[in-house]
């Protein structure tokens, strides 16, 4: 029989059940505010949650327990969890979770079928043009009356549109604008999960977990189509309908000194959408198809084991072997003349091994030694494909015949504008050793030192040439940390670390792995040289000789015409893909990194706690002339909390983050012998006085160097207070305020040459041919948000409570990126009218909570 | 003071925070006597207040039921008026039996 216990003891020892029901309301609709919380729509919502428990009582010998909990029942963030078990024997769990991600509530498009995988333009769609500028060239700015009615320069003269042009323009506006319809883009994830765990004889624990998550909806996505001479973009509603199934089985056993765990993890991703087809808005007779992420699977087996050699020395070994495969059928069309296999048959083998030895030889000393091996070995075969960019039709001239012979295809199959590209299955292997020692000097003081060595290899199995810019990088890190309790109430921690990453040799030609024809001699090259062999023989890379215009002949002119970058025709790729000499990709460039951190915690009295810390990080990419040059960041946090009375607690915090980065580039184009612009020669500004001097020096013009300084500052202020025991203990009130301000600046140093639009045939003598215009800093991108939350709980009786929640939320953002999405914005991008988020709204709810 | 002047909430809070309620309850004996029994024991004793203040601030030895002795706990507050209030509250409790 159950011993008699007081209500107070019962309340403390027997899990209670609660049921909550209420109603709330949101004052205004906002996708951004409701991004993840399910409160995107104006109007009422249901507040509903439940938690019920049952099973044996705490003081009986019945270990059966069950539990059912559900929350946010009225919102698209609902969650349900249930479990049943006999503790110490088995447990079964179920779960359901939903989350909606609001992408855009301002997106509009003329395409029919948004949400599906075929997007078409209604037959009434007229290709937009700005007739005053060109009667035929597709131009998305033609969708703006402000643009089409304004004057344009026609052969150097400002000319107003003719009535005929206005009629055409108005016809386009009248036909197209009504077709733009608004679509809310959102994605929803739903997740079901189930698990069983069982404690088998001899203390083996077996656990099986499985979950399925579905993601459906649509998100905005760019896309590229081609019109004569230009690439245009359409922001499409990308349909999403995907399922991920995950499955885990774990078998574990633990004894006093050892433990062993074996597990299997499987993940199967299924995409129910293969592709997305859309009509070209500049040429509605044609359409393009894009792939969707391919279905794939991954299976991993792992083994973890630990052994205590003594009370102070322990060894842990872990190992995992995984296979990740993908074999979705390739999409093909007229733009893919050469597709050697019908699917990838992709295989990635991952292996991770880890060995960790820890020991505390004395109470004052702790030592650790870790070795880690982590490999992603992409064993997918390399294949060579040929395709045309953006569905461009094949050129009538055939590709170099030596290339088609090497590919074993008929010369007529591939036009000279084809890309012949080999896949690059990237692999990566990390070896890492870490040794650390912690020494306790006196009570409260300790010193920790650590040294880490890391080596990273990157490669592509089966590639004809090393595919990674840095086939190997090595990094050494030394760190020191000092901790001290300076006073009984004051703790400090100070740490510094320095690392150096070295690249054995940075290969600027690694990109050639993409273009196997660089290893085939175009029949036109003398001596049977391939582009690659020529480069090796002459100490060049894809960027070519770093010199100005020099008339070149023979192989030099074939591979590097006029000392420009590797010629497209010499390696069968439509575009220049080499990068600037001196550009290092930051993830594998030489780097010197310093970090420092200081933390101070002070508790002057029992009720007051103060915290301050600062973090500093600096990365210098020591060998990089272009690309990311350096970055630094520092962060500081200040916080104070006061337990003013037993019933009143206050917290105040502030966080400041400052991040800056510098990167550099160069806007070189091809050296050329062009002497003038419509007969005019003078340049205003820049490094060269005349068009001919500039064009001869394109690759070495210092005025084409640019650099940018990015600066991001964020301030976050928070305040919260909790007041309990108001109105004779019946009322508790909490208040929270949050202010977050972020500003990003982007300063650009450098400039551009632009041709003078007035330098047209017939312009007065001495007209400037081109200007060098300085770059200008980008408008500051800002976001500010305020959140004020108030909650009050009023106890109606010992079993029931009334809960009131109120929130005021405010956000303003400015971001120039949205300017390009408006009507009249970009020439080649169809406008979507998306706008930067902003809201100012109230949410209130009242709920009745019943405990039983 | 008189019973009317006692701030009961404050007294209980102090007793809780000082750990007194681990050994004492208002109406039942735990390791230490029930407070109402203490009140009964001192009823009418003019020295009661002073004696108990001394008891809860000095850490003097007390004898437990099982016979062991230890230093008695001390009230955790620097404010004499709060201690007086606590003691007054204890003494104000009704219904105990003096042993």
């Amino acid at each position, binding site marked *: 029989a159950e011993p008699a216990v007081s209500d107070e*003891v019962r309340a*403390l020892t*027997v*899990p209670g059940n609660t049921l909550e029901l209420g109603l709330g309301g949101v004052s205004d609709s906002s996708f951004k505010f409701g991004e993840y919380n399910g409160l995107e729509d104006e109007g009422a919502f249901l507040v509903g949650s439940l938690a019920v428990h049952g099973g044996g009582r705490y*003081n*009986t010998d019945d270990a059966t327990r069950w539990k059912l909990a559900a929350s946010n029942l009225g919102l698209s963030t609902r969650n349900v969890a249930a479990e049943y078990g006999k*503790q*110490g024997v088995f447990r079964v769990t179920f779960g359901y979770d939903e989350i909606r*991600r609001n992408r855009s509530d301002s997106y509009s498009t003329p395409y029919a079928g948004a949400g599906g995988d075929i997007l078409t333009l209604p037959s009434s769609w007229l290709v937009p043009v700005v007739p005053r500028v060109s009667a035929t060239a597709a131009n998305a*700015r033609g969708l703006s009356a402000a643009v089409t009615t*304004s004057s*344009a320069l026609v052969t150097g003269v400002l000319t107003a549109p003719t009535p005929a042009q206005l009629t055409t323009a108005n016809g386009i506006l009248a036909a197209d604008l009504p077709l733009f319809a608004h679509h809310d883009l959102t994605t929803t994830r739903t997740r079901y999960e189930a698990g069983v765990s069982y404690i088998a004889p001899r203390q083996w624990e077996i656990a099986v977990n499985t979950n399925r998550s579905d993601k459906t909806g649509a998100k905005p*996505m*760019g*896309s590229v189509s081609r019109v004569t001479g230009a690439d245009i*973009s359409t922001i499409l509603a990308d349909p999403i309908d995907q399922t991920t199934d995950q499955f885990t089985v*774990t078998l*574990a056993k633990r004894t006093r000194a050892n433990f062993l765990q074996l597990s299997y993890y499987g*993940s199967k991703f299924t995409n129910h959408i293969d592709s997305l087809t859309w009509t070209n808005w500049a040429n509605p007779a044609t359409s393009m198809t894009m*792939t969707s992420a*391919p279905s794939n699977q991954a299976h991993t087996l792992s083994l973890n084991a630990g052994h205590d050699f003594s009370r102070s020395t322990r060894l842990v070994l872990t190992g995992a072997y995984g296979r*990740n495969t993908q074999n*979705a059928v390739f*999409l093909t069309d007229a733009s893919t003349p050469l*597709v050697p296999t019908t699917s*990838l048959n*992709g295989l*990635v083998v991952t292996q991770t091994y880890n060995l960790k030895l820890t020991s505390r030889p004395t109470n004052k000393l702790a030592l650790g030694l870790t070795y880690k091996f*982590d490999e992603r070995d*992409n064993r997918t075969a390399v294949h060579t494909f040929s395709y045309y960019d953006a*569905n461009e039709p094949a050129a009538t001239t055939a590709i170099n015949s030596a290339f088609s012979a090497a590919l074993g295809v008929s010369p007529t199959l591939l036009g000279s504008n084809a890309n012949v590209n080999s896949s*690059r299955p990237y692999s990566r292997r990390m070896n890492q050793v870490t040794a*650390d020692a912690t020494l306790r000097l006196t009570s409260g003081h300790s010193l920790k030192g650590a040294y880490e060595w890391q080596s990273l290899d990157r490669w592509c199995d089966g590639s004809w040439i090393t*595919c990674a810019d840095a086939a190997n990088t090595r990094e050494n890190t030394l760190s020191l940390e000092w*901790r001290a309790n300076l006073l009984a109430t004051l703790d400090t921690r100070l740490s510094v670390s320095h690392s150096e990453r070295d690249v054995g040799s940075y290969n600027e030609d690694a990109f050639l792995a993409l273009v196997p024809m660089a290893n085939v001699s175009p029949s036109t090259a003398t001596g049977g040289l391939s582009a690659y062999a020529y480069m090796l023989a002459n100490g060049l890379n894809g960027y070519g000789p770093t010199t100005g215009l020099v008339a070149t002949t023979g192989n030099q002119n074939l591979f590097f015409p006029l000392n420009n970058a590797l010629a497209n025709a010499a390696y069968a790729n439509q575009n220049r893909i080499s*990068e600037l000499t001196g550009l290092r990709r930051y993830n594998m460039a030489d780097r010197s990194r310093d970090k420092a951190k200081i933390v101070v915690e002070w*508790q002057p009295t029992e009720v007051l706690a103060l915290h301050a810390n600062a973090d500093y990080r600096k990365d210098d990419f020591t060998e990089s002339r272009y690309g990311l040059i350096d970055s630094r960041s520092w962060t500081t946090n200040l916080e104070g909390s006061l337990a003013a009375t037993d019933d009143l607690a206050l917290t105040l915090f502030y*966080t400041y*983050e400052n991040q800056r980065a510098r990167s550099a580039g160069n*806007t070189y184009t091809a050296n050329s012998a062009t002497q003038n612009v419509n007969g005019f020669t003078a340049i205003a500004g820049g490094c060269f006085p005349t068009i001919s001097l500039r064009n001869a020096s394109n690759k070495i013009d210092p005025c084409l160097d640019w650099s940018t300084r*990015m600066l991001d500052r964020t301030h976050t202020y*928070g305040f919260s207070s909790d007041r309990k025991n108001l109105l004779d203990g019946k009322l508790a009130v909490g208040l929270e305020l949050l202010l*977050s301000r972020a500003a990003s600046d982007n300063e*650009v140093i450098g400039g551009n040459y632009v041709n*003078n*639009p007035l330098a047209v045939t017939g312009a007065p003598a001495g007209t400037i041919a081109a200007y060098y215009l300085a*770059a200008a*800093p980008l408008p500051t991108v800002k976001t500010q948000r305020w959140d004020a939350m108030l909650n009050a709980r009023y106890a109606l009786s010992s079993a029931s409570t009334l809960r009131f929640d109120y929130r005021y939320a405010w956000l303003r953002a400015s971001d*120039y990126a949205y300017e*390009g999405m408006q009507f009249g*914005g*970009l*020439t080649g991008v169809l406008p979507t009218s998306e706008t930067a988020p902003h809201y100012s709204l109230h949410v209130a709810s009242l709920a009745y909570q019943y405990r039983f | 003071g008189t019973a009317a002047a006692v701030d009961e909430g404050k007294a209980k809070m102090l007793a809780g*925070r000082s750990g007194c309620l*681990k050994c004492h309850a208002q109406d039942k004996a*735990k*390791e230490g006597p029930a407070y109402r029994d203490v009140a009964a024991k001192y009823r009418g004793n003019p020295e009661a207040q002073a004696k108990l203040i001394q008891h809860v601030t000095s*850490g003097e030895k007390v004898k437990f039921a099982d016979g062991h002795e230890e*230093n008695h*706990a001390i009230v955790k507050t620097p404010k004499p008026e709060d201690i007086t209030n606590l003691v007054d509250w204890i003494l104000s409790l009704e219904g105990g039996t003096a042993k």
Partner: protein
Amino acid sequence: QESAAVDRTLTGDAACTRCHDESETKPILAMYKTRHGVKADERTPGCQSCHGASEGHIRNTGGTGAKRTLPDVTFGVRGKSDAKLQAGTCLGCHEGSNRALWRGSQHESRDIACAGCHTVHAAADPVLTKLSQPDVCFGCHKTQRAQTHLVSTHPLAAAKMACADCHNPHGSTSDHLMAKASVNDTCFTCHAEKRGPFLWEHAPVADDCTNCHTPHGSTVAPLLKARVPWLCQECHSGDHANAVNSAANLQDGAVATAGGLNPLANSAARAQLAARACLNCHVLIHGSNHPAGAKFQR
């Protein structure tokens, strides 16, 4: 740690609960609502399993009236048992599985013990529920708290995700206490569509998601480390980088208006800079499986 003689039953607990009962300001007895309090499961601890036999505390042998002799094991930071002893007590039952790599881990080596995050006496331990878990971590990781309030975040502030979805705070084989063997493997548990392998892999993606993304919050959506086009231009100078991207190339900028000479109908911003910038066209930035997708356009 635990002496064999400890009586883990309710009767055994009475050695403590006769003093520490419902009158406690903190709900000591609420432990009986938790899994530790399921006495019918013989694996669960009694008071003395965790706090030690504590003879001295029960009889207050050395204590002055002002401060009682402490139990053998007390949990918390200041003036409590050594962190190693605290953690050792819990590890007596919980070593292995998720805590296999506790020793030498980032938290352990800073003397953060289990009770630094776990509240075991409360009916519900805040660190075990998504709603309250981040607040526990923010007690120390305040920068991450600020980041979850930036414009682009994971649904952390909305409590649909918690820190432990990505981190194993008890120790891990990978840097930054990632829950899986690497950052990418961790991301793939929710973003399996990025796993591939794709026909055309984008090298930095196969390498590490954090080459471009920052996980807790960013001023650049979606969770990017830098704004596009500069994010891309930190690695790509070739092809269409042949104009500087600056405000001079925006619609009203000096370059777009050719120094003020181009009227409205002629001037337009660069597609590489405005709207989605590089992502106007290179959309399958995580890799493409289209035979014509080498440039991540299809």
